[in-house]
């Protein structure tokens, strides 16, 4: 009844998702300074020390830059270019997205060493950042269906490791840069760990057959497959992976709060309800309105914000009740009936459904994952789903590359053709249901499809690579 998702926080830069996975893959330890203070790693920014953190910058400068250039040369790049210039050209090449107001700029997580140029403390500016990798693993596990082998060992991290290994094997330049970064820049001696599946979602297999969890599981497996790794340039693969992780993160929590919303209404309404009926009764968790509607109609900000806040409150109420009554082990229908029979609980839920209690964490986590960060310039974010309209409105207005990623990954093989029906099916799992004409227009603008008067769901959609 209460989904086993850890509580989220907004992720300050999109690179944080892969960085979190990389840190789970290679070391579970924390970086600390001599005085035991946690070290927050950032790639480009300003070094500082606070009460709880020491901010350390990993971008090589001065002598370190020269040294890095020399290391790269010794690792396999032959050039007459001075080492510092070689180093600078590499650093410039791997810079990640910089937000408008951001105080730092991460390295693009092109390889394990570059992914670990920053850590979650550095990204979040927090001593105890959320375990983002664990959240992603839990989402991945919730998407496991009952047919999949119970002893499968695939995890978000293991699949990422396979993908980056394949990339490094086939891309000599990146291989050299990864090695050199490891040797001369990294703050840690990384050692691979056995990538663990999340244990939080055991027993939840197949409970959400059409959900962001299933979408994420399928899509992540597709993207990390050898075919797709081979087909995409290194940076494009990272951008696509980040997009998939951003969507999974935001939509999973939107699904969660919509689930609680539906559950609370169901408890208030009727003593009897099955799991399947409740899933059926759930509202769309991402209200994507037609593009020809007015801006007030298209705005999702208010809807998602209050839904998120309500969801948090309902979750707390239900969780407290389950703990207090020790009924957590009963089957769903029984617990539902008992909850309906508890008038005090019903009163609390009724109040919560109309509540506007401030609790920004979840909403911000969702918002910052979906919103387009910088819209112009060399670090423009073309992978966002939401776009601000003034200070008040947020509308579904995906970047051209957002639809490119989502539609292309409906196909297991690059260089193939899928169709609008299939893309719609995947979007539906994700929670997004644009009007068919809007979807086709997005695909046409991205150069992936050509509309046809009669093709409907059958409009052919080319994969981008």
């Amino acid at each position, binding site marked *: 009844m209460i989904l086993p998702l850890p509580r989220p926080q907004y992720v300050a830069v999109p690179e944080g998702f892969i960085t979190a996975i990389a840190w789970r893959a290679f070391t579970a330890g924390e970086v600390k300074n001599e005085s035991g203070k946690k070290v927050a790693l950032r790639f480009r920014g300003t070094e500082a020390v606070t009460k709880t953190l020491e901010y350390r910058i990993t971008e090589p400068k001065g002598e370190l830059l020269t040294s890095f250039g020399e290391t790269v040369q010794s690792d*396999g*790049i*032959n*050039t*007459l*270019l001075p080492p510092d*210039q*070689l180093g*600078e*050209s*590499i650093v*410039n*090449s*791997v810079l990640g*997205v910089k937000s408008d107001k951001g105080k730092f700029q991460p390295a*693009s997580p*092109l390889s394990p060493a570059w992914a670990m140029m920053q850590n979650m403390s550095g990204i979040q500016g927090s001593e105890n950042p959320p375990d983002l990798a664990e959240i992603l693993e839990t989402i991945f596990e919730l998407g496991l269906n009952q047919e999949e082998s119970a002893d499968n060992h695939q995890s978000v991290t293991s699949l990422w490791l396979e993908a980056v290994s394949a*990339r490094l094997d*086939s*891309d*000599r*330049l990146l*291989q*050299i840069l990864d090695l050199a970064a490891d040797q001369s820049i990294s703050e840690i001696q990384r050692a691979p760990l056995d990538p663990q599946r999340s244990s939080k979602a055991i027993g939840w297999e197949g409970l959400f057959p059409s959900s962001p969890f299933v979408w994420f599981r399928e899509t992540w497996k597709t993207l990390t497959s050898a075919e797709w790794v*081979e*087909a*995409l*340039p*290194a*940076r*494009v693969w990272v*951008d696509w992976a980040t997009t998939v992780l951003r969507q999974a993160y935001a939509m999973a929590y939107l699904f969660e709060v919509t689930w609680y919303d539906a559950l609370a209404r169901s408890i208030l309404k009727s003593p009897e309800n099955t799991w399947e009926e409740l899933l059926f009764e759930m509202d769309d968790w991402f209200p994507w309105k037609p593009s*020809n509607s007015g801006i007030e109609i298209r705005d999702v900000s208010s809807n998602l914000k209050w839904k998120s806040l309500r969801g948090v409150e309902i979750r707390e109420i239900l969780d407290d009740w389950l703990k207090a009554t020790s009924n957590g082990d009963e089957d769903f229908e029984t617990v539902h009936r008992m909850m309906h029979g508890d008038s005090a609980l019903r009163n609390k839920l009724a109040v919560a459904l109309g509540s506007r209690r401030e609790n920004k964490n979840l909403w911000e986590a969702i918002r910052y994952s979906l919103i387009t960060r910088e819209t112009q310039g*060399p*670090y*423009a974010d*073309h992978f966002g789903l939401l776009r601000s309209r003034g200070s008040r409105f947020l509308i579904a207005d995906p970047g*051209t*590359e957002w639809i*490119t990623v989502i539609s292309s990954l409906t196909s297991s093989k690059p260089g193939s053709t899928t*169709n609008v*029906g*299939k893309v719609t099916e995947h979007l539906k799992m994700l929670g997004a249901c644009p009007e068919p004409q809007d979807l086709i227009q997005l695909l*046409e*603008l*991205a*150069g992936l499809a*050509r*509309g*046809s*008067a*009669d*093709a*409907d*769901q*059958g*409009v*052919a959609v080319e994969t*981008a*690579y």
Partner: protein
Amino acid sequence: MIELTASEQSHLDGLLNGDQNYALFRVTKTGLSKSIFDATKEIRKFLRDNQLHDFDAQLQGQVHKKIVAGEFKTENGNFPFFMHLNRPQSGNGDPRFWIPEIKEIAKPGNIFCLHLFEKRLTISIISASVGDSTEVMAPSKATNTKLEIMDIANRQDQQDLWSMLGNLWERATGGSDVAARPGDGGSPGWPSGPATAGVDSATKWFKAESEIPKFLFLVGGPGGGKSFTAAKLVEGLKEIEPQGQDLAYRAHRYETTSGDGIYLVNDATIGSEIFEENPLSQEIVDCLKRNSHLIACVNRGILVEESNLLSERYQIGQQLIQWVANGNVDSDLDSSLTPQVTTTFPSDYLKAGFVIEGGKPVAEITAVYVDSCSLLEKVPYSEFSIQEDSSSFEGKPYVIQTFGDRKTTPMDSIPAGVILKETLELLAEAIDSDSPNAQYNPFVANIKSLSNSQISTNLLSVARAAEIGSSTKFTYREIWGLICRSIVGNAPNVYNSDQIEKVIISHLPITEDAIDNFHNFQVLAGFRYSQSIFGGGSEKSNNLLFDPVLRLMKVVDPVLDSQPGLFTGDVEHGWATPIVDAFSGPLTEGSPLESVLQQISQKDIFRNVITPFDWALDKSFVEAMQSEKIKDSQRSSAIYWYSMYISRLYATSNGISAFAIEVSNWLNLWKMSPHFPSETVEKQFTTLIRPPRIPDELNSSSLLPVFDSRTEPLRGDNARLKLAIRVNDVRFRTSRSGDSLFLHLIDHNLEVSKVLLDFALVREALSCVEGYPGVTELSKNVSPRLERVRAANLVPKMLSQTNEYRVVVDGKEETFSLERSSN
């Protein structure tokens, strides 16, 4: 009461099968000569009982005349008629009726029966003329055109322009999307477009004798003529267990003289009551089992949907659907099993083959893609020929004409041209130029302007540019929408057909106030063809987005791209200068229209498009400008509006669309494929795809950043230090498939990438000058596509072959290379 002979009674009984809902009338010599019949009590009752017309409620006078459409049923086929019903102004206004078409088939003394067939008003002949044994025949197809021309002559007397225009309402877009029922006749009175590419030859093939069943697939979107073709194929055949006429049904079954009948899937989007899953696949299997012919009207969505749900139970059905959908049979299907599908004739618009089982053909199959060729291009030749012991299809490829070629192409050779021409001929005959206020009638102005064949040809050229600009083709339904807009503007979207005369009258610019008159004129001018086809009239903003015609045409509205220059027949030299000059200066005296005419050549077709309506509008504009009451804001607004009006009228009459240069280049690229039409264009594409780092040096290398999110090439001397690869040895070629054009990138003889070469990409390429990539309003849409093309150089496979790594430092390119891995 007409007394019938025994044979006539027998004929009537056979016709009506016991139905007592009918009325008889005898054609008299006087009636035929005066073109009028008395509506007898029997006829009046029949019309009233069937809610077709109530003479009792009809007022006297020609203005209250009503026209009812119906169909003659004859031994040689059916054809439409219009029954004109009126009560003359004179005397008691005894009810009368007249059917212009009846002159073609009736002789004095013939008895006709007025009845309903499939709920449609029908006239059947009961007897030959008294004392004349000549068999009464329906006009043959060969004489149909003649019939229509004669029909026009009849209508001129009988039917006024308003009722004819009103009949256009049913042809305007926005009607039912449901497929026409096989028993439905076409809309009577209006011309039908010629069959689209491959349809005639496929029809001939289907009708030819065969020992094995034939499966015909008519593929395309709504409004493409699939159901119309299917209806023609089953015309005259008896339906087994006839479906009702109240609803649209998925399928119908017909008896044939040989074999096990024809199974017609008239609308595959309607679910099957018999086959829940993959109904079309199962229907194919069923037809094979029963040795039945099959006609399937199907859209591509259904084909894709059924191709995706694989099942071995009806594998051959799915193989066939995949063959129809894309010509390939999915490898997931077990190819060792029989039956299998083979292809004997492939083309863009028609594909033929066999279903083979045990080494023998068990069904002949043909798929016609009814919307594969533009209705604004010539229909490619195709034929089905039967030799002594064999039969086969032959056909020529689909060819797209350049604008130059179009100028000499007769309207008759283009499907849309046939309809436009014949419709205008029908309407032109009904115009009464002497009627009061004709000069204020925009519909009359449209008909007069477009009756000039060069002007209507040019209108179709603009429509073709819209197809290219929007990468979408007009269906027959949209062609009719375009024609209706060209004649009656957006009136069908706003008014009922019986209101239009009043709308025109209510806006007659005949008040004392010059400004009011001009405002009224603006409303009327919104119906002018050059305004309404681009949404220049009083359109709701949503119409521009969703009206099927405007959605296409707004892309090429000439005012989006008024190129300065004097038009001499070549869009490269521009056209808008005379109009700009006409609106320069104080504008208090001169006529802008006269000013334009003074500047353009004597041969300019614009002179022919101008009608009394336009002169009256021009006069009204001048009077409004001279009015002492006009405010500055009104003056600016009027000048803006009228300059747009003349611009559109000028450009459209000359066949000039917005972005005509780009469209013309796209057409040239298509024509010259796989080569480029000129070295200049090829250089522009080279600049677009791989812009040189130093723009002034075309041979300068193009550098792609290796790890950037966006593959924007590095430009200039001061490019930031970045790892890059040099992309130099890239060549291009083009390829075409139907209306689509593709650009291929070849690097060291290896195809790196292929991208759709559409209008947007051409526009982007043509904006490149001397090594500098340009920017257009389409750049943000084209950029991702371009970047993906460039990024194809950065995938591991390509990187492993390159030795062109670079870093730009102080304006110089420093190379670097990679040592092989020691592993």
